[in-house]
């Protein structure tokens, strides 16, 4: 057995190690100081550009309440819960008057949920296929992988609202444009996350499937998919929450859902109808968030026990 306490040069190994370590620490220190200087330079620049000063913030505060003042419903307590009167109208100051278009809103909100659901399903399907092509360990060819990654970057790099604008010209005003726009963006974002999950999966089952004579599709279906399924499901549910918010926004450019109504009441009335719609949207998003969080936790909890 070789004598480990001596290296060929005859130097003390501890001194050698300490010198190497000190050098490493010095190198890292220089890099860290450089980064800190850069960070503060950019911070100062952005404050200057945004004109971000405490006085400006303080001046603006009353105006926020001004706006809320104009869109707040004005209730009068004596008619608050009154129903329709003889002419079939709700008296001004009642909840019924405030939510005169309640069923219209509900129909549109239901449309919004369905849009988000369809877009999530389509986007997830696309993302699964693209992620196997994009992940470095499973891609059938490096060139295909590069193309898939660039394509995913494009899909998630362009905002939904921009896709929606273009698609409204292509397929016309309505939910289809919104669904397609959100699908593209969700596929891009999920595809990236999925491909990272795939890159962390064990390749041993893939070797096993290769050795039984399985094709690339069979290697993915049997070797990878069972390993990544819980993660994929969890990410897809989380994306559904985001897509609900997104489908409430794409309506602003005519791509269906409650967003169209919100945009309409803001620009045409700017009265208590704005808060009526907003309140429903906030309630919907909160409810979906809570439900999906529960679903995800149930799923993760179940998987953790296995």
């Amino acid at each position, binding site marked *: 057995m070789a004598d480990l306490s001596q290296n060929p040069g005859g130097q003390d190994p501890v001194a050698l190690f300490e010198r190497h370590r000190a050098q490493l620490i010095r190198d890292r220190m220089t890099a860290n100081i450089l980064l800190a200087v850069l960070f503060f330079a950019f911070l100062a620049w952005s404050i200057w550009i945004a004109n971000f000063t405490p006085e400006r913030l303080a001046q603006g505060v009353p105006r926020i309440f001004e706006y809320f003042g104009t869109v707040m419903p004005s209730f009068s307590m004596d008619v608050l819960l009154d129903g329709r009167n003889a002419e079939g109208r709700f008296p001004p100051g009642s909840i019924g008057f405030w939510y005169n278009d309640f069923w219209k809103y509900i129909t549109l909100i239901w449309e919004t949920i369905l849009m988000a659901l369809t877009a999530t399903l389509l986007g997830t399907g696309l993302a699964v296929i693209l992620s196997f092509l994009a992940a470095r360990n499973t891609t059938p060819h490096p060139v295909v992988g590069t193309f898939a990654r660039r394509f995913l970057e494009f899909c998630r790099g362009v905002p939904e609202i921009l896709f929606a604008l273009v698609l409204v010209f292509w397929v016309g005003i309505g939910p289809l444009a919104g669904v397609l726009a959100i699908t593209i963006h969700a596929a891009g974002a999920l595809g990236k996350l999925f491909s990272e999950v795939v890159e962390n999966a064990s390749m041993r089952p893939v070797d*096993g499937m290769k050795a039984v004579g399985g094709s690339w599709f069979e290697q993915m279906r049997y070797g990878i998919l*069972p390993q990544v399924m819980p993660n994929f499901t969890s990410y897809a549910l989380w994306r559904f929450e985001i897509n609900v918010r997104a489908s409430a926004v794409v309506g602003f450019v005519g791509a269906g859902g409650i967003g169209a109504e919100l945009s309409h009441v803001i620009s045409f009335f700017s009265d208590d109808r704005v808060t009526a719609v907003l309140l429903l949207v906030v309630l919907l998003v909160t409810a979906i968030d809570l439900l999906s969080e529960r679903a995800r936790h149930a799923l993760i909890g179940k998987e953790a026990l296995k």
Partner: protein
Amino acid sequence: MLEFKGLTKQFRDTIAVKPATLTIPDGQMVGIIGRSGAGKSTLLRMINRLNEPSGGQMLFHGRDITALKGRELRQWRNECAMVFQQFNLVGRLDVLTNVMSGRLFHHGFISSMAGMFSAKERAFAIRALDRLGMAHVALQQTDTLSGGQMQRVAIARALVQEPRIMLADEPIASLDPLNAKVVMDALRAINQEDGLTVVCNLHTLDTARQYCDRIIGMQDGVIVFDGTAKQLTDKAAREIYGAEAEEAFSEAMTSTTLRPSDKPEAATPRVVN
């Protein structure tokens, strides 16, 4: 008959397997021994092309294996099943599906993507599992099994491929002596009862001597020994293992329980097909 004609494998700047020429007749049980890094695994994985050979040729009954592509290559892989050191099963699928995945080559795109297996395939898989004494866990999730059980499931998967050759890459290196014996007994039974050619890499000298008709010794990518267990004297073994000889011999000492039984119990029920 499997013929190697100057088969070689080169990774960037190291030659893992120097031109190897040998012939393995049908029905032989061959053990490849050597220290770690000698090129045993590379040689074995070149047979089913999990590692691409960099040069030379390999023929199986006159068919050029090294030239196969696409579907023909997958057909060849289906004909020569492989058992791995780490089992390479799909842990999150049940045992039965893992075994049935050995039939995937015979499936079309739709049925394999949908995971549809016929009743006949299910029966075949259960018989293969039963032959290895594992039918009772058929519906259990695979990653709940012990290492020895997983290796037996992996052998069942290999059996439902109806292979002509069985490759085993260090099949017992991750197992305790008792499970190692069960697995080696099963491989020997497959060799003797079904007449399959079995080629396995083994780390321990003792196991190779006990189970194999023929032993091939490798050192630094070169085949330095090719003969029967009797011809493998201690002196020859020491040459194969070089500096690791002491380790290989002492490992043989600790696995003295590894004696093949007269009638391997794992192999009584036959796969009928």
